[in-house]
């Protein structure tokens, strides 16, 4: 059999079409493409744990002006205090309640509650947009739900900062060591370097050693709770089941794992 140019091109076209059909047929028949990402989300740390935080705002507000949790976090993670607000590095900080829950809680618009300070941090989303966009795998979701940050791999492209709807990420515009008192730096945790993005890691380094996050430990009022939301007997689960809690910007579909008790 001889094949002329015309026949060859026809066959090539049919074959290319066939290749294009494969994923379509697959998703129609078995939905394999969708299933893969769901499996990825459902996989745990081997023990089925999913860490979560609860911020009990009324309890937090019962001691106005207290920033013990922030001080504890800043100390163990060597977070610099930079003069220039635009270059500030934050892991755990405060925002007005009104800004966080406008649209979810009418009090956020109308009452005096709107100006009260509420704690904010990385939400350790079930579906983290920052992880999707990171080109180097420097940020990823661990099996136990912690959205982790590997400073070694971060190239400082800041895609993650654009992707995060909560502004939970900070960039080191300047060398953080210039704003740190190097005599008081905790050698147990590295400082960061210029050109790296950082954020709350839920104290993964403490959790891996059997500890709890520094902010939870630092709060003497019990306004911060930490635990396994998958464990029906855990305190975080009990609070989320029995009290009215909100998460930030649920319409984004990120499924935050930081819950706020609001009344």
């Amino acid at each position, binding site marked *: 059999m001889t094949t002329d140019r015309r026949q060859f091109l026809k066959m090539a076209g049919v074959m290319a079409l066939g290749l294009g059909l494969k994923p379509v047929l697959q998703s129609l028949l078995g939905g394999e493409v969708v299933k893969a990402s769901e499996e990825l989300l459902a996989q745990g740390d081997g023990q089925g744990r999913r860490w979560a935080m609860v911020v009990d705002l009324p309890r937090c507000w019962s001691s106005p002006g207290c920033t013990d949790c922030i001080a504890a976090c800043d100390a163990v993670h060597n977070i610099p205090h930079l003069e220039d607000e635009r270059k500030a590095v934050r892991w755990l900080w405060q925002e007005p309640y009104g800004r966080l829950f406008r649209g979810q809680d009418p009090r956020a618009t109308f009452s005096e509650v709107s100006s009260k300070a509420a704690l904010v941090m990385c939400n350790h989303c079930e579906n983290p947009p920052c992880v999707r966009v990171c080109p180097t795998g420097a940020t990823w979701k661990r099996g136990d739900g912690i959205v982790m940050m590997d400073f070694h791999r971060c190239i400082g492209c800041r895609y993650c900062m654009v992707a995060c709807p909560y502004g939970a990420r900070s960039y080191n515009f300047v060398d953080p060591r210039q704003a740190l008192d190097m005599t008081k730096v905790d050698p147990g945790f590295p*400082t960061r370097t210029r050109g790296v993005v950082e954020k709350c890691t839920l104290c993964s380094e403490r959790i891996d050693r059997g500890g709890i996050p520094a902010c939870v430990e630092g709060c003497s009022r019990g306004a911060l709770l930490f635990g396994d939301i998958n464990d029906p007997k855990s305190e975080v689960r009990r609070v989320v089941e029995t009290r009215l809690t909100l998460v930030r910007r649920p319409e984004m579909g990120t499924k935050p794992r930081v819950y706020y008790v609001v009344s």
Partner: protein
Amino acid sequence: MYDAGKILPGMALFLAVVLAPIWYNVGSGQAAAGPDIVKPVSEKECVEPAQYMRDNHMQLLIRWRDDAVRDGKRTYVASDGRSYEESLTGTCLRCHSNKGEFCDRCHDYSNVQPSCWGCHTSPEESKA
């Protein structure tokens, strides 16, 4: 060859100058002095035999880094069965508390600039 009278002596002179350090070492009968490092007095043994550490400490540290940061695994079982926490500042620098006299001297000698210390701090630094 044109100008062989200039080129050949020129090349000979060039080679003599460039190779002078090598001939000097051969002539003096001893190798150049290595880095003068100060070993810890508190411990006699590192996590692995000294020769292995000399050759492979960088690979070991990279593995520890990936284990601790990426996999949340923080225990290293050495070839002799003892286990250690996989931590640069917690395990290595506990004995090698003299980073300047140990790590830096050898790294300076061999002209390598590891980027570890851009973020990790030694107890020395936090005391100074």
